[in-house]
């Protein structure tokens, strides 16, 4: 039986993919298999309903390197008779998708959000034109390599395992990239993707010190502070984990407040699924007002303290 093969270099992402894989499997009559390579948690996959978990213990798999993992997955995919390969659309996962798809001479789609089945093929929705549009795209022929956005699915609950483990013997060329050092990023534990309220700041903020009043507003609302890309990458006022938009997090809060943000689509793509959007901007023609439910034309330096005070009652 043809299979949907799930893999991510991060187990928690792979477990999320299983939710999507199960749905596709039911519609397409395919079984769900997983590749638990290297140090990955084979039991975790089994207890989440995977029929066959492929494991390999090659020395070369100890560290994730895309070209080595592409070789491994090509071999596992053959063994599993995979018709669909679902990967996590992380940075490492996107690199793997390209390398693997080229190796197998098949098509690939990355950053896939919603997945649905039409005429026996998987149709992915993904942002196009820098987020201005959402395209529905499908791979017409052959094996489908699809990297799915980490926030797209929910992991199935753990249950009694029913599948089996198959250890495969892989033949792998070693990596030509040597890892010299790893410096963990300061673990900002803020979960922007899951936040109910986001207070987003942009270039209207004049200095780092002003983050204090923004933070106070976020606290009064029970929300998190997020930002546009330049505030994190150019100004470095906030960690990169707080970036919302095409090159950052895609949130789905009940309330998003946008302060001093003009509303370029590269940012708005990260909040456009919000329940309610509020914008504060000095320029009444700013695009952000087009997609806001409520807008205040004014200076955030006056509006923010006033709003915080009003909320605290």
């Amino acid at each position, binding site marked *: 039986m043809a299979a949907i093969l799930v893999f991510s270099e991060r187990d928690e992402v792979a477990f999320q993919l299983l939710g999507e894989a199960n749905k596709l499997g039911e519609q397409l009559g395919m079984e769900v298999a997983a590749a638990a390579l290297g140090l990955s948690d084979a039991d975790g996959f089994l207890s989440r309903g995977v029929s066959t978990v492929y494991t390999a213990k090659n020395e070369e798999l100890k560290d994730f390197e895309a070209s080595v993992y592409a070789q491994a997955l090509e071999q596992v995919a053959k063994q599993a008779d995979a018709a669909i390969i679902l990967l996590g659309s992380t940075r490492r996962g996107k690199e793997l998708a390209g390398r693997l798809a080229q190796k197998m001479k098949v098509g690939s789609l990355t950053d896939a959000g919603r997945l649905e089945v039409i005429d026996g093929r998987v149709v992915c929705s993904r942002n196009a034109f820098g987020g*201005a549009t959402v395209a529905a795209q499908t791979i017409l022929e052959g094996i489908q390599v699809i990297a799915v956005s980490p926030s797209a699915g929910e992991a199935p609950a753990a249950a009694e395992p029913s599948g089996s483990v198959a250890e495969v013997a892989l033949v792998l060329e070693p990596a*030509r990239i040597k890892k010299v050092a790893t410096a963990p990023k300061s673990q900002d534990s803020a979960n922007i993707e899951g936040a109910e309220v986001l207070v987003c700041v942009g270039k209207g903020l004049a200095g780092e010190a002003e983050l204090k009043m923004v933070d106070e507003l976020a606290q009064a609302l029970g929300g998190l502070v997020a930002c546009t890309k330049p505030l994190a990458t150019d100004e470095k006022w906030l960690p990169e984990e707080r970036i919302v938009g095409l090159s950052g997090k895609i949130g789905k809060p009940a309330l998003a407040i946008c302060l001093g943000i003009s509303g370029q689509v590269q940012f708005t793509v990260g909040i456009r699924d919000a329940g309610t959007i509020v914008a504060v901007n000095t320029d009444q023609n700013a695009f952000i007002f087009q997609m806001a439910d409520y807008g205040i034309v004014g200076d955030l330096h006056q509006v923010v303290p006033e709003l915080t005070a009003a909320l605290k009652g």
Partner: protein
Amino acid sequence: MNIYVCVKQTVDLQQVRIRKETREPVLDGVPLTIGNIDKNALEEGVRLRDKLGGKVIGVSAGSEELNDTIKEALAMGADEAIMIIAPELEGAESSTVAMALAKAIEKTGEIGIILLGEGSSDNYSGQVGPRIAEILDLPQITYVSSLEAEGNTVKAVRNLEDCFETVEAEMPVVVSVVSEINEPRIPAVTQILKAGRKPKQIYSPAELGVEIAGSQIKTISNLAPEQDRKRLLFQEGVGQDVKSLVAALESEGLLGR
């Protein structure tokens, strides 16, 4: 040493508008430009050349209109350019573009580093770099935020979700960069004037042995998402506006979380 920088011509995303009635993007008359992150890749190529010597060669695949984009790359400091031109290459999918770029690079000669942006500014799929590496059987280092080269060795820092990873590889190597790596220069007028006189090589896909088959990827629809927003604007002065906003949020049950 040859440093190849792959660049993509895209519509200027700042100028793409959405037709309200149909939610379709309006692309007519939108100027074409070089991809944002491609500029970072070019800047890094030029910086490395100034240190190591050799040549920076801009490479791009697309339609006839590619000339303007390539001129921009040459003005930014590339020494030469290669263009693969065919109408079918306009907006072609990653696998086709990667094959055209890889074959053109291979034909040109010795490879030191192949530089790209982490993804194109319009599609952002990040697939061309890894595919080129696979076609040419080269190691690749993606999402690089800092790059050094000495002798034949490249040392790079990768900016990943959870960490910064420092890696080394021997040339030839494919490197994709993130926008934080540098600040791309704005070319001086003299550079723009010089750009027109720099050598350009043009290939057709057939000359490179690249077959453009039908596409593997089909785009079924491509529309702006529906936005049904209230668009209520408060402009009665800060004090009153804040009161109105709080009342509105309260009535929607969004406060007190």
